[in-house]
């Protein structure tokens, strides 16, 4: 469950990125977040895992006001949220396997469980044979799939994606959207920011439309 109540976000420089934004995505639903460049999509997503804090208003996750979460509990909160950026943020010195295993290591999963889950995630994104490769040996699309595998490996209850298909060809973009639909079908709450309107037209899901930091909700 993701809920915004009258959220405003003004950056220290004075740029207003979000203005009085309210919406609610129930547990297990998928929504797209669209809008022109600079309309505030990334700013909105960044508030959810506490990368940034709202200037005013409330952000709730699973009915919990995250402003009230103590600093020491923020890491735990983030473990419930998988984040996929356009830039995959992979660690190039590490193997694909180790990149994907990171969220599990952070949560002190036992070794055998890590191996089992990483392999399952690799299988899901179709990279089963590349577990020992380094990220730089992979194509852009493959890197993005590693990014996705890392976001889902710890089975978060929420997945956020910011332009996940920005660098990918239409065919691969479509594949990745289908993957997201599968996670959603398995019960993960998803919020996907994208410009690619023609791509999301193929999927039946509610849309949050941002324009100059103001929200127009459709179908939620």
């Amino acid at each position, binding site marked *: 469950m993701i809920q915004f109540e009258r959220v405003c976000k003004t950056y220290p420089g004075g740029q207003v990125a979000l203005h009085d934004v309210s919406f609610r995505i129930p*547990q*297990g639903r998928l929504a797209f977040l669209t809008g022109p460049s600079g309309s505030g999509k990334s700013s909105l997503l960044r508030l959810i895992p506490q990368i940034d804090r709202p200037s005013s208003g409330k952000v709730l996750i699973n009915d919990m006001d995250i402003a009230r979460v103590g600093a*020491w509990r923020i890491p735990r909160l983030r473990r419930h949220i998988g984040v996929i950026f356009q830039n995959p*943020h992979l660690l190039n010195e590490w193997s694909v396997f180790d990149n994907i295993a*990171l*969220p599990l290591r952070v949560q*002190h999963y*036992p070794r055998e469980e890590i191996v089992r889950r990483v392999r399952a995630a690799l299988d899901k994104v179709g990279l089963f044979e590349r577990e020992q490769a380094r990220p730089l040996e992979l194509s852009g699309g493959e890197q993005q799939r590693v990014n996705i595998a890392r976001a889902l490996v710890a089975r978060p209850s929420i997945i956020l994606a910011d332009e996940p298909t920005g660098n990918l060809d239409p065919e691969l973009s479509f594949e990745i959207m289908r993957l997201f639909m599968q996670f959603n079908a398995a019960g*993960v709450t998803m919020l996907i920011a994208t410009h690619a309107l023609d791509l999301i037209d193929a999927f039946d899901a509610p849309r949050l439309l941002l324009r100059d930091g103001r929200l127009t909700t459709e179908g939620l």
Partner: protein
Amino acid sequence: MMKRQQRLQGISRQLGMKTRFQAWVDHHRDSFQDALRRLVRRPVGQLLSMLVIGLSLTLPITLLLTLHSARAGLNGWSQELGMVQMFLHASAGQATDGGEDAAHTLFKQLQADPRLREVRMIPPEEGLKQLAELHKFDSLLSEMKHNPLPIVIEVYPQRPEELAALRSELAARPEVASARIDAQAVERLQGLIVSAEHLLALFLLMLAPTLAITVSNTIRLELEHRVDEIRLMQLIGATPGFIRRPLLYVGGLLGLGGTLMAVVMTLFAAHAISEAMGQVGFALPSSAAPALALLAVLPLGFLLGVFAAWLASVVQMRNIRVV
């Protein structure tokens, strides 16, 4: 979606204490290996850091060792050197009717005294000879018609702390013109050790910042090198402690390596010092204790390094924000 929640909780319940502990141990091992890799990646820089730590530790440790053996030596010397020196009246050298002079009577009495370890009598002729040897004026000697020196008796007590009481007791005797404690050498050495101890305190004060700065600098470089990784870990939900752990091992290993270098350098320095002291006639007792004490310094160096790294990473990680 309660199902997924329950499943999540189910998993964490499934992970019993034992597997959690095992995973925690695993992470320590991973962090340690990671720290080793970090050290190996910049071997020259890290060796230099260790050298700086090592050098800053060598001085105080060497001093500590020297003081340790000097103090052991001093106990011996003070027993040997701490004495009451009595100058007898000239009349004490003249034989009485009984045949023996007062000086010899006193000498025998003192020899029988259980409080005394050693009693020496130096007749005037011998005193003159010693003086002559010491100051090399043989010619003067032969020209002297009359020996001006008194009979001297030196007594060495069993226990150096009885010197003062002994002196006043002996000074009260009729045969004795004057009695004085001769412990100059001991006092001078004691003064030396005290000032050396002050110096040591100063070095130890200087050491703490050196170690902190060296380790902190290394941690800063590591953090710069790994900013992306740290931001990512924060995003993924790693606790600050988890992120810091490899850095703490880096600090610990630096401290350990520096201390090890210090120990090696100290052994060389201590050897050189005792050799030099030996040449000027002060044999420092060597014992196994300092070598063992040096080993105790190793874990201390490790812990100091860990602490410095912890401090540095707490301060410096505040500037790193998620992704």
